[in-house]
């Protein structure tokens, strides 16, 4: 079975600074994806970024980028130039065979 672990229950960062959220996972599958989802107080889960496991190049979406270390089964999210609107719960998720397995989440606070 797949497991996803987020070891940081809470993180905070000053506006305009950079923050990194950690995630590790365990799987025996060879074909899978990894995701970061954002969940604001409205509860809507919003896809932030995804990484195909077979790709060595780290995914980037504007201010969001990942550091994917396949051998270490590590998948961290870096948010650059943090903005007040980035405040939310962030969930790391493993995806494969039509399923998603989520971590426990990290609550990100942005300090103005």
């Amino acid at each position, binding site marked *: 079975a797949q497991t996803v672990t987020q070891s940081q229950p809470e993180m905070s960062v000053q506006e305009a600074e950079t923050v990194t959220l950690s995630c590790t996972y365990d799987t025996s599958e060879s074909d899978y994806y990894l995701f970061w989802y954002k969940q604001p107080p409205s509860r809507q889960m919003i896809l932030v970024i995804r990484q195909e496991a077979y790709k060595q190049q780290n995914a980037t979406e504007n201010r969001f980028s990942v550091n994917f270390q396949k051998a270490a089964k590590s998948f961290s999210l870096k948010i650059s130039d943090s903005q007040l609107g980035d405040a939310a719960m962030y969930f790391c998720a493993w995806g*494969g065979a*039509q399923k*998603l397995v989520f971590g426990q*989440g990290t609550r990100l606070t942005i300090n103005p």
Partner: protein
Amino acid sequence: EAGVAQSPRYKIIEKRQSVAFWCNPISGHATLYWYQQILGQGPKLLIQFQNNGVVDDSQLPKDRFSAERLKGVDSTLKIQPAKLEDSAVYLCASSWFRGPLYEQYFGPGTRLTVT
């Protein structure tokens, strides 16, 4: 493109009562998921439909939870009777059926409080 719709947004019931949630997926999405998200935790899959058939309901507490997807479109999730530990947000998601992975699109969720 309209997103995944869910109703109601909030529901408060007493324990041992019954409750039902409704989900309308994105048009054309063959796969539909129901998740339970307890406060402070990540979503946990309860049941997965492919069209109107159940693909995975291994984590659905079948003694009190039931779900159906009529005609492969809308879906309802029912709890009867509810327990205090059922207080959670119930998320519905849908996805296309293609390729090795199917990006899931989430609805706004229903927050259930059982008193």
